[in-house]
């Protein structure tokens, strides 16, 4: 069942990445993603992939965890790759099974399929490191700080971040509860796995109704508990962990800037035609 969700999980540690300021980590991750979409050829793509793998090594998070995370998106990768192969008809035709059909496998199609797959893998590798190395509270605190300019527009940024903290905290609890409810309904003879789509959708009602009821009850009790702990919104609230940009974070920003520069130069500047790698997209 839905048990082994690793995306969004946090693995405590003391690596360089763990100790980076969470705000710096968010910004660097966003920068990396943008760069990933700017990248146009295999040379810069491999550079980005290498950086992602290097970051995994630095974080000292086991490859088993990383692979588990990747396995969950395997389907998406395969689907994207298949779409590229089937629908990209540019370039030389390598294989045309039925001459009458428009469908043909081309070298360009295969190139772009491989390119996109690597791009997705790099994206997931790098961005999952953000949550693997940052505790949910630190993450939401950082988002609160980064979004604080929105306060000028009277957006209650603190409430948003508190909601995120609580949501992240309760995801595992509710998954656990969902599994218990599914088992309970199955043991009463509920049939969830067979029948038409409509029938299966209907079978989900007796699962989600108790889940929602319980979620509301939990929210009610949690509100009492937060009251008891003197929660009063942002007013007068301090933090145990102070966020302060340090030398480490500047190293991170610099590395990130150099990477983007390298990618942009190799992708767009004509000079880079000295590289044998052709632009594929």
């Amino acid at each position, binding site marked *: 069942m839905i048990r082994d969700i690793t995306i969004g999980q*946090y693995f405590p540690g003391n690596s360089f990445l763990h100790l980076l300021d969470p705000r710096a980590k968010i910004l660097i991750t966003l920068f990396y993603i943008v760069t990933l979409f700017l990248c146009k050829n295999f040379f810069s793509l491999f550079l980005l992939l290498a950086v992602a793998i290097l970051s995994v090594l630095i974080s000292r998070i086991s490859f088993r965890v990383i692979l588990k995370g990747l396995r969950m998106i395997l389907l998406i990768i395969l689907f994207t790759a298949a779409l590229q192969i089937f629908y990209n008809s540019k370039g030389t035709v390598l294989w045309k099974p039925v001459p009458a059909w428009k469908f043909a496998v081309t070298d360009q199609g295969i190139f772009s399929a491989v390119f996109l797959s690597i791009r997705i893998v790099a994206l997931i590798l790098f961005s999952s490191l953000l949550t693997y190395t940052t505790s949910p*509270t630190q993450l939401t605190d950082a988002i609160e700080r980064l979004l604080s300019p929105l306060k000028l527009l009277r957006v209650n940024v603190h409430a948003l971040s508190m909601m995120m903290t609580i949501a992240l905290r309760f995801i595992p609890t509710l998954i656990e509860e969902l599994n218990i409810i599914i088992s309970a309904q199955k043991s009463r003879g509920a049939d969830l796995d067979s029948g038409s789509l409509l029938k299966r959708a209907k079978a989900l009602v007796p699962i989600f109704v108790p889940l929602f009821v319980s979620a509301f009850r*939990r929210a009610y009790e*949690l509100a009492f508990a*937060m009251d008891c702990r003197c929660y009063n919104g942002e007013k007068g609230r301090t933090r*145990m962990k102070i966020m302060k940009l340090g030398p480490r974070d500047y190293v991170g920003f610099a590395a990130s800037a150099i990477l983007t520069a390298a990618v942009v130069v190799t992708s767009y500047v004509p000079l880079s035609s000295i590289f044998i790698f052709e632009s594929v997209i």
Partner: protein
Amino acid sequence: MMTEDLIVFDHVSYTYDDEETEKTVYALKDVSLTVRQGEFVVVLGHNGSGKSTLAKLSNSIFLPSEGKVFVRGMDTSVTENEFPIRKTMGVVFQNPDNQIVASIVEEDVAFGPENLGVPPKEIRRRVDEALKAVDMYDYRMHETHRLSGGQKQRVAIAGMLAMQPECIVFDEPTAMLDPKGRREVMQIIRRLNKEQGMTVVFITHYMEEAVHADRVVIVNDGGIAADGSPVSVFADREMLARCGLNVPEIAEVAYQLRSRGFDVPGSVLTEEALVDAVLRLAGKN
């Protein structure tokens, strides 16, 4: 002495409207109770006796419909007193899952002091101290949802300790725990009372958990049926039966022995005391 009175319930009633019958129901009716500093008070009562309402009245989560509740002389119905009162009176609830706010142990424990505006370094010190007090320091970086029920409840207790309250009210903290978790939590609570002088109000329906208390209060039908030392309260078997409560197992064994003519004192409430008494009898014969 007035200063020693930590919590005072002065003729307190609490009513709510029953949605089905649309009648006003008394959860508590004309209750007067005083908890003194350093005491370990166990509040016993069966389900629906009103004992949990007592917990929420004590830190101005609920306000009395009639009468007054005072914490350190502060009236709970005065809005300005809300935060000072909640700082003085910690409350730990039944379901540990529904009182943990953060995903990581130490971040959850820090939640209370953060709300109080304590400086960061001091929060760090308090969090470490609180976690050590409940034997959870080694788990400070763990994810809260992976802990056992007993461990979660200890984290919830640490969350209260970090706010440095004078008294903690425990509202059936062991009801959802397995026997092992229950023992762990009981042990921590007793230690807090004995070693740190923390005032403890412990609400439960497990009779066994009451035997170590300084004082036992029995709540029945929204009123107080008995208030005294465990020995005196558990000696009143008729009253307990009227309140739908059983005598603790050991006390029952002692009573049965006594009624069969053995010389077992009425003060026997714990296993150790019972073993002692029986050995003494065996020695005599």
